[in-house]
């Protein structure tokens, strides 16, 4: 397969551009997505190609913005709505949870809501409590929504294209710390990744590290360190939370008999708890150590750097967790 190197941000932009070229009903709207190309500058150039009609700057009004997206999706358009920071999704929660997610079901299967909401997540930029949250668990909790959370440029491109083509509302989360991350991306125009397919990012035998979004890279770092210590870690990335590829996660833990789950959402009532229960049930007879969950500390994200750093899981945390699992090397 022919591949090209690009950044995560470029992959997202390319996915949107290709889908807009392919399907005239696709358009993008959001705050400063036009000439500015978003505040992260990730979509710079899209407006030049598609113009005001299809790359639309909106008022600062998240509830209305998403509401319009729902209505447009319901009536033959395929909108992509941009919510700059994941924290601001809370302002549009009624539109997402009570409207977008439920229209198909409530209408007895009549409605289709092919809406893509793209937003960001992740701490680490000293942006404090209202610009750093990872709230993807909120949305994964709601039947009727799909949630994708790509960790690499290739996954970002493939999943984004699938999101746009999906006939359901999809929320796709980009970690803003990853925009400059480089990786190889398949060149072919129709490169998509189906939802519900986890990806084994590194193979191993002794322990499974199940990680999402930027935490995949934390897990890969940890796996590297562990390898130097003679422990072989497998890194599995679910890539989409809804639908969740339980089978791949369970199979990996059946093989390794141990798991650490790492996600940047708050630990309590979140993604790691859900995945742990899926794995416990599926791999119960094979598990040799209590599953460890690592998530953002259960506090609002603090501004001050030393405090903020303490709230996000690190590769060291992962390594320490694994080392306490009593893995005996032959």
């Amino acid at each position, binding site marked *: 397969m022919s591949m090209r190197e690009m950044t995560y941000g470029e992959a997202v932009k390319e996915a949107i551009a290709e889908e807009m070229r392919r399907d005239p009903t696709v358009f993008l709207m959001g705050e400063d997505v036009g000439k500015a190309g978003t505040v992260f500058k990730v979509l710079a150039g899209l407006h030049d190609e598609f113009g005001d009609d299809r790359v639309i700057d909106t008022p600062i009004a998240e509830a209305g913005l998403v509401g319009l997206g729902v209505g447009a999706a319901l009536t033959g358009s395929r909108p992509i709505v941009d919510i700059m920071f994941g924290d601001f999704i809370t302002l549009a929660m009624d539109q997402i949870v009570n409207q977008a997610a439920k229209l198909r079901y409530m209408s007895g299967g009549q409605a289709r809501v092919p809406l893509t909401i793209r937003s960001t997540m992740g701490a680490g930029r000293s942006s404090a*409590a209202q610009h750093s949250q990872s709230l993807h668990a909120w949305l994964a909790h709601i039947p009727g929504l799909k949630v994708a959370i790509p960790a690499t440029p290739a996954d970002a491109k493939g999943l984004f294209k699938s999101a746009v083509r999906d006939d359901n509302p999809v929320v796709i989360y980009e970690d803003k710390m990853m925009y400059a991350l480089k990786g190889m991306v398949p060149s072919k125009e129709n490169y998509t990744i189906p939802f519900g397919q986890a990806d084994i990012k590194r193979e191993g035998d002794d322990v499974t590290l199940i990680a999402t979004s930027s935490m995949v890279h934390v897990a890969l770092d940890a796996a590297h360190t562990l390898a130097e210590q003679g422990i072989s870690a497998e890194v599995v990335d679910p890539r989409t939370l809804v639908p969740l590829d339980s089978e791949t996660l369970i199979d990996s833990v059946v093989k390794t008999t141990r798991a650490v789950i790492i996600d940047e959402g708050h630990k309590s009532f979140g993604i790691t708890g859900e995945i742990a229960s899926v794995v416990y049930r599926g791999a119960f007879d094979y598990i040799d150590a209590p599953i460890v969950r690592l998530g953002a500390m259960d506090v609002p994200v603090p501004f001050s750097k*030393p405090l903020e750093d303490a709230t996000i899981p690190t590769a060291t945390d992962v390594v320490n967790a694994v080392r306490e699992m009593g893995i005996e090397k032959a």
Partner: protein
Amino acid sequence: MSIPAEILIKMYRAMLRIRRFEEQIWEVYTSGLMHGLAHLYIGEEAVAVGVCAALRDDDFITSTHRGHGHCVAKGGDLEAMMAEVMGRVTGHCRGKGGSMHIADMSVGILGANGIVGGGFGIATGAGLSAKKRGTDQVAVCFFGDGASNQGIFFEVMNFAAIWKLPVIYVCENNHYGEYTPTASVTAGERIADRALPFGIPGTTVDGSDAIAVYGATAEAVARARRGDGATLIECDTYRYRGHHVGDPGEGYRPKEEIEAWMAKDPIERLRKKIVADDLASEAELDAEMREVEREMENALKAAKAAPYPDVAEVKKHVYA
């Protein structure tokens, strides 16, 4: 409107303090001593200062992401503010909030806000509480032109109108929300007109003129204290710098436009007025500048020397 000389000089000094604080933030930020986002208020000083000069210490304000000016004007401490934006434990919020969340409840600063429109509910609720508690306190809600398109703005004006709440909505119309010109995303001639359907008075003032802002606010405060309810004041203003440190502020804003606004600088303007009216001499105003300079230097020195919070503090203050 004739305003006592001491208030004019106080306003001049307050504007200088904001300007110097913000210039200092620029330095601190670009030299790597500060992280995160820093939205500077340079050019808009007359709004915060004109409004807050008409308030009492026990009145309330809610602020925005561009909040340093409001906090200085309402009585925030320069040293504690500087320490806060640098994430130090001596900051107003012990380093937990940072630039976008500075709060000093002791002087009625209910908090800057990272959410555009985040202050609407809080300010209106503070007005409701003042009324319930039978005080004559008022609450001021600072917000941007961009925030005026959030739905909650219309919800709170309705509340304030039906219950005659002592709230003053102060719109800082600086003609841009981030990189988007206000006119391209905002219906109607004036944001002030948005009050009219609610029966709330709405006026537009020159936001580079501290005296005009003070006058409009004093009138709104008197009305609120009398029990006659809310007012919306739209202040026509401009930020000299980019949306935040890191945005050069050009490209999306015509050079001539920036220059035209800088030519009617609010600080220079008040200074000229004070001197022309013989309320203070150039020398006296220069002395004010030196005094502010000294204060700023001390604040910066103290903030730089202050420690970061102990990591053990990270779990503190989640609950009361």
